[in-house]
């Protein structure tokens, strides 16, 4: 039955309207029309501006307060469509998919000047993007040059939320069982070698086509670098000599709208239809889930694309500058993000917006988890000070809708906060473990004295997370920031000239080692060593407790030519080269088998820390440490070995083999005395990185037995992984 409030009360230039509903914020399709709702605490005047899609001039501008006519007569009548600090009206009879909209806001004060500090930045000459826009037009096809002079470049659109999920739900895979693949939507299929049609390459639907590749690799979670609407042309630079963009905002760590997928990542973006973009992404999520793969979004809530005092007014600053941003008392933008401004995330309004956005992604897009860029900013108060009990982080941790979502913090910011191990976690948050990354790298390159730290990394970093468990630790050797794996073993220093910042950008402390020559070489000995070092890194990562993350491209050993900060390069350097799967097939096979090994062995995936104890009296503790001599770890050297007792797998709830790992980062081969197994058990070799493929890693379950059950020669700079089980099994 139709509701009794479907009739309009007012009319404005032929458009029939009535007072709206404040919740939900944004534009929602309601019976008979579209409901608009926008917050501003400091604006006292607001106008709804409606455009036909793509039109330069508005169809109509309807004020939220003023003289109207009655809906069914021409009698003048006063109207005000506002509840508290929320402007809200329903416009009836709108063709919701044919329009775009925005707002003008004012508070009657003199306007702030560009480049000058100001508390408020109202400017009624600007049409503002809705902070709750669920689709945003204006950058509909990646890289298609926009009209630079457009007065309303980023346009809010209306979205139908309905979608046939066919019973799909988030997968809720236990965190300790994940193998995360960090990837870039465009970079995944943009390379011509992907075999995807040029018109579809680099999109959500192209990614959907390539899910079998992920499935074959064995990862069960993808973490997408930012997919919220951003402007790839932000700070872009055109190269006239080569007729191409020398620099773009390729990574996308600069959000325009927190509720909208990046239209340019959808092959349907060209249709200028926000709902299709949403459908395309949902269809990707559904298909990932069908294949047992979770999807985590890398979300950027620490700043927006509006920059500092000189930046453009797109939305937030024109809607309520002092609510959305952290400001100095004079009205300058605090810059804890290193990008010009800082979102005021512990303001109650902004906190609610962050929550609303994440709930929207979790419920409408079935997103399995979120990785928060520069998450330490989310623990700062409105004046920039870090809080012991930040309300936003607490709210996220306890939110009912996000209750099963993975929450992962990049636990530092550009303002000097470094909270790895101390991020306010509320029993829920995991962290990108930057310390573990550094330890793995230093141990890998053969720095002495790292065995103690390496032992902590193997355990999932109880030194950092003793009350939280190994699932607090997202382990990685490489991520989008810094060297990728091939470059970690090929370069001592960064080579970032292509970023057009005179090699000043990017990290200087890479803990990398070029294996004897800087960059590309034909030297077979160096190439072999690099190959082995890459295998060593992957092996160490995948036998460590905690949650491993692999960077897209590393599974095929793709180089980025020594560039450790490729944020601005929309080029082959960042696009996954699919031909490398064949060129480097041995390495790809190694990675695949290592992932399969991890998934086959619950002993590697504990939810609680191992205790170096044997409470059940099996004769072997859950983990024991060894060196070249069994039961005697070499402290301070370059050698570490450990033994896992499979009877304690998954905190004793699962059964597994014995697993023995010997890591020899010394430059000569060393004999390792093997721990003695119980009667009837035999050592078998799963992996030995000093062997050529395919003997570098066997298919899990088909490991050959070891002739010498008492000792094992681990080659120079190599990792060996043995499994101990009974002859019959």
């Amino acid at each position: 039955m139709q509701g009794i409030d479907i009739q309009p009360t007012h009319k404005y230039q032929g458009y029939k309207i009535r007072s709206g509903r404040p919740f939900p914020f944004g534009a929602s399709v309601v019976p008979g029309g579209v409901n608009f709702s926008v917050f501003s605490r400091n604006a006292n005047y607001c106008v709804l501006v409606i455009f036909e899609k793509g039109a330069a001039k508005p169809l109509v501008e309807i004020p939220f307060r003023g003289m109207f006519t009655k809906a069914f007569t021409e009698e003048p009548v006063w109207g005000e469509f506002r509840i508290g600090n929320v402007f809200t009206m329903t416009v009836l009879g709108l063709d919701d998919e044919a329009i775009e909209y925005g707002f003008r806001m004012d508070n009657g004060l003199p306007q702030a000047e560009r480049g000058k500090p100001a508390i408020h930045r109202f400017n009624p000459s600007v049409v503002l993007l809705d902070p709750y826009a669920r689709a945003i037009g204006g950058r509909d096809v990646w890289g298609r040059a926009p009209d630079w002079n457009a007065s309303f470049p980023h346009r809010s659109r209306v979205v139908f939320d309905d979608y046939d999920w066919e019973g799909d739900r988030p997968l809720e895979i236990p965190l300790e069982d994940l193998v995360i693949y960090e990837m870039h939507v465009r970079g995944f299929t943009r390379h011509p070698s992907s075999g995807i049609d040029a018109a579809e390459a680099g999109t959500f639907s192209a990614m959907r086509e390539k899910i079998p590749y992920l499935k074959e690799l064995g990862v069960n979670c993808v973490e997408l670098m930012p997919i919220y609407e951003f402007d790839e042309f932000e700070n872009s630079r055109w190269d006239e000599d080569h007729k191409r963009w020398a620099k773009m905002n390729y990574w996308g760590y600069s959000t325009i709208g927190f509720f909208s997928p990046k239209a340019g990542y959808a092959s349907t973006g060209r249709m200028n239809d926000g709902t299709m973009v949403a459908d395309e992404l949902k269809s990707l999520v559904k298909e990932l889930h069908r294949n047992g793969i979770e999807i985590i979004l890398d979300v950027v809530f620490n700043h927006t694309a509006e920059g500092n005092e000189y930046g453009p007014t797109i939305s937030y600053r024109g809607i309520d500058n002092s609510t959305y941003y952290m400001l100095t008392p004079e009205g300058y933008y605090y810059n804890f993000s290193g990008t010009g401004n800082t979102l005021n995330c512990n303001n109650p309004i902004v906190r609610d917006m962050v929550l609303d956005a994440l709930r929207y992604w979790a419920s409408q897009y079935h997103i399995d988890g979120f990785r928060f860029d520069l998450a330490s900013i989310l623990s700062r108060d409105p004046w920039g000070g870090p809080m012991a009990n930040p309300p936003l982080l607490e709210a996220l941790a306890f939110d009912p809708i996000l209750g099963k979502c993975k929450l992962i913090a990049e636990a530092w910011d550009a303002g000097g906060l470094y909270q790895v191990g101390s991020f306010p976690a509320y029993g829920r948050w995991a962290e990108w473990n930057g310390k573990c990354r550094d330890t793995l790298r230093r141990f890998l390159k053969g720095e002495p004295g790292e065995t103690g730290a390496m032992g902590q990394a193997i355990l999932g970093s109880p030194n950092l997370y003793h009350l939280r468990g190994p699932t607090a630790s997202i382990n990685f050797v490489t991520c989008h920031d810094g060297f990728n794996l091939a470059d970690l073993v090929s370069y001592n220093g960064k080579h970032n000239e292509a970023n057009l910042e005179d090699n000043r950008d990017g990290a200087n402390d890479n803990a990398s080692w070029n294996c004897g020559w800087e960059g590309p070489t034909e030297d077979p000995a160096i190439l072999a060593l690099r190959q082995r070092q890459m295998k060593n890194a992957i092996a160490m990562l995948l036998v460590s407790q905690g949650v491993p993350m692999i960077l897209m491209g590393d599974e095929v050993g793709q180089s980025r030519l020594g560039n450790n900060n490729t944020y601005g390069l929309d080029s082959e350097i960042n696009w996954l080269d699919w031909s490398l799967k064949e060129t480097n097939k041995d390495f790809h096979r190694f990675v695949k088998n290592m992932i399969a090994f991890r998934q086959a062995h619950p002993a590697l995936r504990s939810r609680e820390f191992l205790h170096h104890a044997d409470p059940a009296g099996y004769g072997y503790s859950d983990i024991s440490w060894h060196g070249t001599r069994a039961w005697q770890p070499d402290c301070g050297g370059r050698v570490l070995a450990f033994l896992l007792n499979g009877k304690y797998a998954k905190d004793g709830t699962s059964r597994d083999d014995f697993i023995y790992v010997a890591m020899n980062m010394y430059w000569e081969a060393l004999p390792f005395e093997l721990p003695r197994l119980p009667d009837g058990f035999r050592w078998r070799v799963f992996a030995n990185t000093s062997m050529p493929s395919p003997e570098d890693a066997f298919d899990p379950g088909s490991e050959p037995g070891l002739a010498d059950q008492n000792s094992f020669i681990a080659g120079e700079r190599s990792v060996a992984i043995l499994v101990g089980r009974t002859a019959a099994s």
Partner: protein
Amino acid sequence: MQIDVREDGGVVFIEPVGDIDGKTAPELLDAVTNLVKPKARIVLNMGRVAFMSSAGLRSMLLIYQQAKSKDAKVVLTGVNSNIRKSMSATGFLAFFVVADTVQDAISRVG
């Protein structure tokens, strides 16, 4: 919107003419709903539809769902490449049997 309907040999042929968007999708849905009888065999010929919006995609899915609930069968034909691409990218295509020719559609509708 103009919607041509005819029946031939137990198969209902429905042929909408023009764009299917927020304005016309409800009309198409109304018209087709009446034709989806239990166990009906329907060929939906899209040969004279140049453009389909997301509202159009939804009306197609609703038709499919109605047909399924009544044990009826719908086969699409004449889908132009643009619409096919949108349907494929958004996942809607996976719900449908799509035939290249009307003849093929007739044989696949059973």
